[in-house]
C-alpha cells in the first residue's frame, strides 16, 4: 500500500463497528444460589471494584510506580470462580491479577502495600503489581509472560492428582493468550493427562490495544478452540457473577470428581485501557458506552433489588467496603519501604543469593 492511498482511518480501530453486549439475562435471577451467598458475591465485587479504583487513583498520584493492569469491569469472573472454589484449591492468574488475588481472601492491605512498593507488601515489595502471590490462600501466583502460567497450573493440577488431594486448579487468562503456543501446549497436555483443572478465558474483546477478532480466525478465541482438544465449547456471560458461578461450580465439580479439564470463555469488557499508560482510545465510543451500561456491579445490584434486598443494605455494604479500602490505603501509605537487606535475599531456598564458594 503506498502512502498516497493509505487511509489511517481504516486502521483506527475506534472506527470499526462496535461489538455490543447481549442484553442481560434476568432468568439468571432464578439460578439456585442462597441469598446470603449472593450478598457476599455483591460485597466481593464491591471490594474488587473499589480496590481497583483506588489503585488507579494512586497510580495517577504517582504513588504506585511501574505499571498496572486493572480488572475494572471484569469483577464478575473472579467473583464467580472464587466463590465456587474450595479453600485449598489453586488459583493461577496473569499480570491482571489483583482481583483474583483479593477474591481468594488475601487481605487488601498487603496487596495495596505491594503496589506501593512497601516492605509490608504481600511480596515484600519484590514482586509488584504483576506477580501477586499468596500460597497460604491458594493464590499460586500472577504471571506476567503470556501463556506460561497455563503450563505451570497444569503442574499444580498434576500434583493434586498424584497426591490424591481432590484439589482443583483454576487458571485465568486473557483472550490474547489463545494465540500463543503455551496455551495450546497446556490445553493439550491437560486433556491427555485428564488433569483436574479449569482454564478460564476472560475475553474482554481486546488483545492489549488490538481487537481480538482481528487477530483470531474464530469468533470465540478460547471456546472455538476447545473442540481441537476434545473439550466442550463453553461461553458464559462474564459480566453476570451468578452465571459465572453456576458454570464454575459445575466445571470444578467435574474436575474434582475425575472428569478432567475444562476450557471456559467468559465474555466481558474492561472499563479502562490495557494498562496504566493506555487510555483505551482505540475502542468505539458506542461500544464502550454500551458495556459500561452492562457493568457487572450494576447488573448484580439490580438483581438483588429484584430479589427483594433493600437498597439501604447494598449501600451499607458499599460503604463498609469503602472504609476497608481506605484502611488498606492508609496501611500501605504509612508502611516503610522494604528493608534494604531484602534486596539480596530469597534467590535460593537457603534464603540467600550467593552463587559462589
Amino acid at each position, binding site marked *: 500500500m503506498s502512502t498516497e492511498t493509505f487511509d489511517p482511518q481504516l486502521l483506527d480501530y475506534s472506527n470499526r463497528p462496535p461489538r455490543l453486549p447481549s442484553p442481560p439475562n434476568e432468568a439468571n435471577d432464578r439460578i439456585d444460589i442462597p441469598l446470603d451467598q449472593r450478598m457476599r458475591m455483591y460485597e466481593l465485587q464491591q471490594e474488587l471494584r473499589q480496590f481497583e479504583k483506588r489503585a488507579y487513583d494512586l497510580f495517577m498520584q504517582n504513588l504506585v510506580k511501574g505499571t498496572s493492569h486493572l480488572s475494572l469491569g471484569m469483577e464478575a469472573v473472579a467473583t464467580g470462580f472464587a466463590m465456587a472454589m474450595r479453600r485449598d484449591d489453586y488459583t493461577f492468574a496473569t499480570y491482571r491479577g489483583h482481583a483474583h488475588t483479593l477474591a481468594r481472601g488475601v487481605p487488601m492491605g498487603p496487596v495495596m502495600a505491594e503496589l506501593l512498593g512497601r516492605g509490608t507488601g504481600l*511480596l515484600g515489595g519484590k514482586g509488584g503489581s504483576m*506477580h501477586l502471590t499468596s500460597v497460604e490462600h491458594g493464590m499460586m501466583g500472577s504471571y506476567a509472560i503470556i501463556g*506460561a502460567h497455563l503450563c505451570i497450573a*497444569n*503442574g499444580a493440577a498434576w500434583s493434586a492428582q498424584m497426591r490424591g488431594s481432590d484439589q482443583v486448579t483454576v487458571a485465568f487468562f486473557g483472550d490474547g493468550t489463545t494465540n500463543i503456543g503455551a496455551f495450546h501446549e497446556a490445553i493439550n*497436555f491437560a486433556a491427555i493427562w485428564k488433569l483436574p483443572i479449569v482454564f478460564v478465558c476472560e475475553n474482554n474483546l481486546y488483545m492489549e490495544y488490538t481487537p481480538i477478532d482481528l487477530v483470531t480466525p474464530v469468533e470465540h478465541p478460547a471456546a472455538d478452540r476447545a473442540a481441537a482438544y476434545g473439550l466442550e465449547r463453553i461461553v458464559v456471560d462474564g459480566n453476570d457473577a451468578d452465571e459465572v458461578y453456576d458454570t464454575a461450580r459445575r466445571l470444578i465439580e467435574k474436575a474434582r470428581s475425575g472428569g478432567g479439564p475444562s476450557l471456559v470463555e467468559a465474555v466481558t469488557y474492561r472499563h479502562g485501557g490495557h494498562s496504566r499508560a493506555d487510555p483505551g482510545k482505540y475502542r468505539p465510543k458506542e461500544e464502550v458506552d454500551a458495556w459500561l451500561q452492562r457493568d457487572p456491579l450494576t447488573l448484580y445490584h439490580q438483581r438483588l433489588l429484584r430479589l427483594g434486598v433493600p437498597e439501604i443494605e447494598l449501600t451499607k455494604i458499599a460503604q463498609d467496603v469503602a472504609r476497608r479500602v481506605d484502611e488498606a490505603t492508609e496501611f500501605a501509605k504509612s508502611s516503610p519501604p522494604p528493608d534494604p537487606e531484602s534486596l539480596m535475599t*530469597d534467590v535460593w531456598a537457603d534464603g540467600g543469593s550467593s552463587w559462589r564458594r
Partner: protein
Amino acid sequence: MAEMSYRDAIAYGIAQEMRRDPRLVMLGEDIAAAGGVFKTTVGLLEQFGPDRVRDTPISEQAILGAAMGAAMTGIPVIAEIMFSDFIAVCFDILANQMAKTRYMTGGQVTVPVVIRTHNGGGARFGAQHSQSVENWCMMIPGLKVVAPSTPRDVVGLMAAAVRDPDPVVFLEHKSLLATKGEVPEGEIVDELGVAKVVREGTDCTIVALALMVPRALQAAERLAAEGISAEVIDLRSLVPLDTQTILSSVAKTGRLFTVEENPRLCGWGAEIASIVGHEAFWDLDGPVVRITTPHIPLPAAETLEDMAIPSVDRIYKEIVEVMD
C-alpha cells in the same frame, strides 16, 4: 565398585533417588516406554511404573511448566529436555518463571526441579542439536547448573541436584555417554558447587567442564612430556561456582587456562578469568587464556566440527605456545 557407562549411570543415579524419595517423579519426551532417545532412562518405567515415569507430547513449555507447578505444590520433579538446544523453546519457563518465582514472591515458592538435558557436540548433529548451552543457563539468577564428566559424578551430582530445593539444570554430555568409569557401591551423594582437582600440577592450572575434562587431562599428559606440570580442575558445577578451588590452584601455579566447549562470547571461562583477574591478579605470572569453541554455530561435517570444539591437540598447542 563396578564399571559403568556414563549413560547407564544416569538411570542408575535417578533410580537411587527415586527409591529414596517416593514422591519423586519424572517426565519428558520418549523417556518412559522408549527409555529415552539416548537410552539414558532405560529400565526406570519398569522399576517405578507409569505414574512416576511419564511420556509427554513434544511440548517443552508444557513439560517444564508441569514440572514447576508440581514442584511448587510439593512434588519434586526430574524433567528431561531431550536436547539442550530445545531449552530455547521453553526458556521462558526456565529463565522467567522457575528461576525468579522464589525471589519475586518473597520466598513463598520453592521449586525443586531438576532439568536434565543432553548437551554438547561431537555427534555430528549440526548447529541445532550439538550446542553447549551451559552459558545460557549460568547467566540466569536463580538457576543452578551442573555438568558431570564421569559416571561416578553423574550419580553423585544427580543426587545432589535432586535433593537441592532450587531448580538445577543437569547437563549430560552426549559425547560422554559411551565412556566408562568406576562407580562405588552404595549411595553416592555429592555437594553442588565443589570442583575437583583431577590432576595435580605446579606450572599451570587448566579448568575444564564435562567433555573438556578428559581432553584437558590428555593434554596435561602431553604437557608433562614437555616438562610442563599442569593441574587440571573439573569444575563440575557452574552455579554454585567453586572459586576457592580455582583461586588456590592459581595461587600455586600462577597460570590459568580455561577449556570451554561453549562458543566464545560470555562463556563461563570469561567469568572465571574476571574473578581471577580481580582477586588473584598478583598471583598471576602471565595472561589468562581461554580455549573455546569459536563464536560460530556448530557445523555438521565431522572434520569441521572437530576443528571447532577444543581438541586435545589444540589444548596442548595453545598451552605450550603461551607457556614457552
